[in-house]
């Protein structure tokens, strides 16, 4: 393994878990989340020499990830395989909030992809409007409108006071 590959695999080992979590919130399925992460890192590898030393590496990778997710949806639902099983996702720790988790994921599933991406980047990744716009490849105004619409959509499908926190 050469230096390039070592650097790449080190970065993958340290960050793929976080990106997979983001992808999971975007798509609601661990299998698809891993597919999205894999595709993201294959694309990242192409530019590794150029981008690896930059402190914007995470932002760059996140942008690939979000666009991979959006592109997958833009190209149509046929492009992705159907989830056939709940991937190792049945042993949540006790605490009574598994139902909440499913409620949120189902609710997010009702939100169109771009709105969902805006919500996940803004409220899971805690990204600014400006950074979210950069990641999604759109204007800040679009991020604001997509976020507002996404929240409206969630309010329409999530009963109030659902989450126990």
């Amino acid at each position, binding site marked *: 393994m050469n230096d390039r590959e070592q650097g790449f695999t080190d970065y*993958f080992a340290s960050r793929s878990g976080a990106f997979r979590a983001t992808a999971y919130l975007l798509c609601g399925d661990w299998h698809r989340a891993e597919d999205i992460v894999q595709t993201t890192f294959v694309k990242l590898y192409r*530019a590794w020499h150029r981008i690896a030393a930059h402190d914007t590496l995470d932002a760059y990778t996140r942008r690939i990830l979000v666009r991979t997710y959006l592109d997958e949806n833009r190209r149509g639902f046929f492009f992705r395989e159907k989830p056939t099983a709940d991937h190792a*996702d049945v042993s949540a720790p006790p605490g009574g909030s598994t139902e909440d988790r499913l409620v949120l994921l189902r609710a997010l599933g009702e939100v169109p992809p771009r709105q969902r991406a805006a919500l996940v980047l803004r409220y899971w990744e805690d990204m600014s409007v400006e950074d979210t716009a950069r990641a999604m490849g759109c204007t800040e105004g679009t991020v604001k409108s997509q976020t507002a619409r996404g929240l409206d959509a*969630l309010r329409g499908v999530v009963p109030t006071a659902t989450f126990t926190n």
Partner: protein
Amino acid sequence: MNEQELRAAMRATMATATAPPPMSETPVLDAARRDERRRKARWAGVGSAVAAAAVVALAVVVVATTSGAGGTSHVGAGSPTSSATGTSSQDPSGSSSNTEPDWPDGQTDATATAGPHYDTGVALLESMATVVPAGFEAPRGLEFADGGAGPLDMSQAAWDGKSGGVDVWDYYGTLPLTKGARMGELIVDVKTPGNEATGTGCDLGNLWGWEGTCVARTVGGEPVGLWTGTEAQPGRGASFRHDDGTVVWVFQSPEYFGSGRQALSDLPYSDQQLLELATDEKFHLG
């Protein structure tokens, strides 16, 4: 639900979600290496073409300026002149600072939103609508049941880079096919000459690399691959390469994922019909 509640809900959700084991870097690195090899091989082909053209040009000059002066011309074989791709393709070392492709026709990304290639994509979808089998309908303008992007019937023209100085385009369309309340879909994907696909028939692989099994068939003496999908990606497809290099995949699925409709009880096309669709001049786009 307000912003703070959503933020808290997301954190609570991820705190209780039991993630699968960490992803292994090995398959990802392998996939990245394969991707790079494919891209290098593609550009090696382009470079060879450029080199061959340069050799011919140089030979002409030599012949014109000398009389029978032979010798070997050393021409840079790995210097494709196309400006069509990013760093890792043009320069595997990654040392170039320019990574943005020069999109064709003033496009801002790979997808044509207007112009002749966009029109070709639209025409593909219209051609698909002319081959709806008896007993089925192809409703237009229906939306995904879960708010997914775009209508169920859609087409796209995506620029796939350059090969030998020629733009390569990928056109595809998807059309819902209904019988009563049930719905399946027809997908056609066409790659113009210079595409990366290799071989003919089954060697072309399944649509978009989907898994499946293939049986070699012929139509008019030409090899066509007949594909059977998997449980996760059900359906049947056909793969065909025209003599000029155009590659066509036709795929039918008994269901249209995301449509909210029940799957068709039977596939719309017979195997023979599917094979003939793949070779049909309607889908021989240039």
